[in-house]
């Protein structure tokens, strides 16, 4: 059975099909096996979450989506488990506000832990309803019924049987459910059914295959970049060379030789459209524009950390477990030695594989459609509605696979650009950025400094203070339902609404006094900034734990303790200790109380450990690096990862997801730093923003999955990204005795450290 829903085909499977809307890319999503009309989407209706097709297989309507890590497969397994169906008999229709409720989109690794949990409840409720119906039909009590593979049988008289298909196949559930009133990640519903006991699980723990791999290799389905709507125009934006400048005059005649090319200019928003894509690109390059003369918005790149240190803070906060500041100072007074270090981390870019793309078909008197690669198509649709002056229900947001996304990348901006250009031209518009926009103007992971201070008495920590000072975690919100968070909207006058927030380390280390605080500083530019900050995969996790775990290492060595043993002595939660121990054991940890500096010729070799929690998931990583003492080049050869995210639903997909996190995390550790001049970001392509090359990949990634069958699944999409940078830095220290306190760990920084 083909579980991939090819959007150009109608779902295979028996039974009548209703196709309510025929739009490119959505035919199959609108197609269901219902004989009757589906009730309008409503969180109170079971039919909004799940349906049974005529052939007895199920469709779950997922208000999140899979970004290529197999989240949909995991969710299908959860639904299948409660329905006693094999995983391949559950189809997931995802990320379309026309077919699913708003479950928050892809967000914070909650696809399975939240989104899947909700649909699992829906599946349990569906089974409950079907058993009630079967009980009536077969005239046996519900307790006497058993389900397997879509067949319902009387246990006392196996001759009496029916099936999901017979009971409700091809029709919609007409069942009201009690939901919790929360739209987004937390949307959930109650079920009257008792959820399955983990001991009975059959589908959890199996490696059901991905569903999006074949079409991605054969080129048989649409990415968002492939969506075509009749009469569609191609659009490009023209952004200023000096950030903050706005167009003051535009010479439309300068593109008059390009067929059909037109200028769209509203306040600071400047774009061109043309029927052919290449013509739109040419026009965007050829258009003569005079820009306003503004002050250069940024300091010199080398001043970035001084700037952060000296900037006034506009918001501060910290861990809920913090004590009175006076108590902290008192604890430090009791120390006989205080050690302190500052760690620095640059802006980093999503630099998705292609610049973001969106298609909008503006229909003021009907339904406007947005096709987007955004992780949050429901919210992005709401944002587009607002900027177009429409009601949310007048916009359908449809997700189609895009060029990668790791948080709040440039996809949200593309959606608003396409919407504004579609409205301005009265035509469907496909917008895609150019490479310099994808890397130069996407929302960035914020630059930061982290100061960690430990008060020691008799070789023991008596006071611990972790403090971050940084650009805003959410200068633009990751949610996209408010157009203020998008470049295009800011260009036409929407004010930015910064979130002013940050985060603190997550671990269970016990110190007599432990304080974790932060402060954020204003952005360089209030709005339309190429250095605006937002979520980048495992938001703030890599840099915060680079500092936290780096400093734990520093304290261990300062007090003559082995880094693994020291962490084991500090961690108060047994799951944390299990992960640390599992990684160390599997990696063959070499106990030491000082950097080993094992050297052969020009190559120094080292091993480092780092640990962190992330919303309940725990990951410990041992990295092994070779440092070339002549060139300063770091090669992280091997990673051993112990991963505990509760119950493991799909071991193979989880392992591959972890491998991706390790390699992307390594890329950020050794390469990635957004460069800028006083005028603008100068990291604008793959030469100026290099990422990991295949020649630099780790040769071994050893993954130890710690399965907790009795615990619910926690997020696994980015937990293993978190300790990568720290593990690499700690391994570099073991190899060379050089403590990296500023990333990324480029040859220049290594050489400077070793000099």
């Amino acid at each position, binding site marked *: 059975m083909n579980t991939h829903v090819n959007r150009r085909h109608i779902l295979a499977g028996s039974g009548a099909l209703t196709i309510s809307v025929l739009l490119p890319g959505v035919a199959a999503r609108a197609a269901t096996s219902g004989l009757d009309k589906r009730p309008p989407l409503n969180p109170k209706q079971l039919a909004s979450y799940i349906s049974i097709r005529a052939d007895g297989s199920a469709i779950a309507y997922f208000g999140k989506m899979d970004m290529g890590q197999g989240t949909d497969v995991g969710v299908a397994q959860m639904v299948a488990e409660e329905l006693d169906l094999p995983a391949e008999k559950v189809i997931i229709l995802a990320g379309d506000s026309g077919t699913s409720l708003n479950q928050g989109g892809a967000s914070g690794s909650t696809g399975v832990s939240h989104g899947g949990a909700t649909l699992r409840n829906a599946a349990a409720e569906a089974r409950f309803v079907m058993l009630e119906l079967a009980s009536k039909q077969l005239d046996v009590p519900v307790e006497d019924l058993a389900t397997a593979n879509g067949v319902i049988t009387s246990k006392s008289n196996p001759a009496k049987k029916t099936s999901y298909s017979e009971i409700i196949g091809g029709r919609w559930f007409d069942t009201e459910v009690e939901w919790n009133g929360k739209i987004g990640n937390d949307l959930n519903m109650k079920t009257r059914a008792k959820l399955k006991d983990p001991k009975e699980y059959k589908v959890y723990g199996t490696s059901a295959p991905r569903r999006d*791999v074949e079409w991605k290799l054969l080129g048989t389905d649409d990415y968002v970049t492939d969506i*075509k709507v009749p009469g569609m125009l191609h659009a490009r934006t023209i952004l200023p060379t000096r950030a903050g400048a706005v167009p003051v005059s535009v010479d439309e005649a300068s593109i008059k030789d390009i067929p059909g090319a037109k200028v769209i200019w509203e306040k600071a928003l400047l774009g061109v459209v043309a029927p052919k894509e290449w013509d739109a690109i040419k026009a965007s390059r050829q258009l003569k524009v005079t820009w306003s003369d503004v002050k250069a918005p940024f300091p010199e790149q080398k001043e970035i950390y001084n700037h952060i240190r000296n900037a006034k803070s506009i918001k501060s906060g910290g861990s809920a477990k913090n004590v009175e500041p006076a108590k902290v100072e008192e604890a430090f007074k009791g120390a006989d030695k205080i050690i302190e270090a500052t760690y620095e981390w640059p802006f980093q870019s999503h630099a998705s594989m292609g610049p973001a793309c969106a298609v909008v078909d503006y229909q003021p008197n009907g339904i406007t459609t947005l096709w987007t690669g955004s992780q949050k198509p429901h919210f992005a649709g709401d944002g587009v509605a607002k900027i177009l002056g429409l009601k949310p229900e007048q916009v359908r947001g449809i997700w189609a696979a895009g060029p990668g996304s790791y948080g709040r990348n440039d996809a949200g901006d593309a959606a608003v650009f396409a919407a504004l250009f579609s409205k301005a031209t009265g035509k469907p518009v496909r917008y895609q950025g150019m490479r310099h926009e994808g890397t130069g103007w996407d929302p960035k992971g914020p630059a930061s400094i982290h100061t960690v201070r430990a008060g020691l008495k008799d070789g023991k920590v008596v006071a611990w203070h972790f403090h971050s000072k940084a650009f805003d975690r959410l200068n633009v919100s990751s949610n996209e339902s408010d157009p203020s968070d998008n470049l295009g909207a800011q260009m036409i006058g929407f004010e930015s609404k910064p979130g002013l927030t940050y985060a603190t380390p997550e671990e269970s280390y016990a110190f007599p006094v432990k304080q974790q605080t932060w402060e954020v500083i204003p952005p360089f530019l209030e709005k339309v900034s190429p250095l605006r900050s937002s979520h980048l995969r495992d938001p703030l996790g890599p840099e915060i734990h680079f500092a936290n775990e780096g400093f734990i290492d520093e304290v261990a060595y300062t007090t003559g303790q082995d880094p693994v043993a020291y962490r084991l002595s500090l961690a108060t939660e047994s799951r944390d200790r299990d992960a640390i121990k599992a990684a160390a054991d599997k990696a063959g940890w070499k106990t030491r109380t000082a950097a080993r500096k094992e050297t052969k010729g020009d190559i120094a070799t080292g091993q480092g450990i780092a640990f962190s929690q992330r919303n309940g998931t725990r990951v410990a990583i041992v990295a092994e690096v070779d440092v070339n003492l002549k060139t300063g080049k770091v090669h992280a050869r091997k990673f051993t990862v112990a991963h505990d995210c509760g119950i493991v639903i799909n071991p193979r997909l989880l392992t*591959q997801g972890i491998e991706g996190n390790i390699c992307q995390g390594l890329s950020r550790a050794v390469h990635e730093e957004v460069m800028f001049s006083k005028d603008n970001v100068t990291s604008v392509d793959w030469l100026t923003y290099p990422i990991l090359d295949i020649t630099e990949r780790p040769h071994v990634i050893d993954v130890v999955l710690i399965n907790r069958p009795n615990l619910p699944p926690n997020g696994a999409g980015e937990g293993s990204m978190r300790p990568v940078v720290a593990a690499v830095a700690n391994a570099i220290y073991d190899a060379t005795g050089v403590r990296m306190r500023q990333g990324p760990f480029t040859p220049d920084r290594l050489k400077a450290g070793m000099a």
Partner: protein
Amino acid sequence: MAKRIELNVDGKAHTIDADPDMPLLYALRDDLGLRNPKFGCGLAQCGACTVLVDGQPVRSCVTPVDSLGKSKVTTMGGLVKDGKPHKVQEAFIAEQVPQCGYCMNGWVMTTVALLDKTPKPTDAQIEDALTGLKCRCATHASIMRAVRRAAQA
């Protein structure tokens, strides 16, 4: 000025009217409506737009459409013969390589060309052929497994 240009793509002859300087990528995507090659950078830096021109991997984002003469262009979709995917595609599918998959044209087409010349490459030869290609989702571990698997097929 637009010019009449003939192209041979995936075994079919096409005639388009296009600016001779237009990169091949836009002819494939926009004029022929093919969805395989992707725009990643337009700068020959990533490989997302890779096609084979007479068996050689070429970055279609910087290849002028009028420079091809009688050459045969193959896209990733065009590797499928009589409904059967190429062994490299099969290996990438079996290894479940792609995350977003936007980069796949580069890795697959370059691997096809590599295995044509060097059917049993060493890891070093694989690295040599694939260096420079980008995968932002960082699926490097799966890519290596898939290339080795294809070489064994």
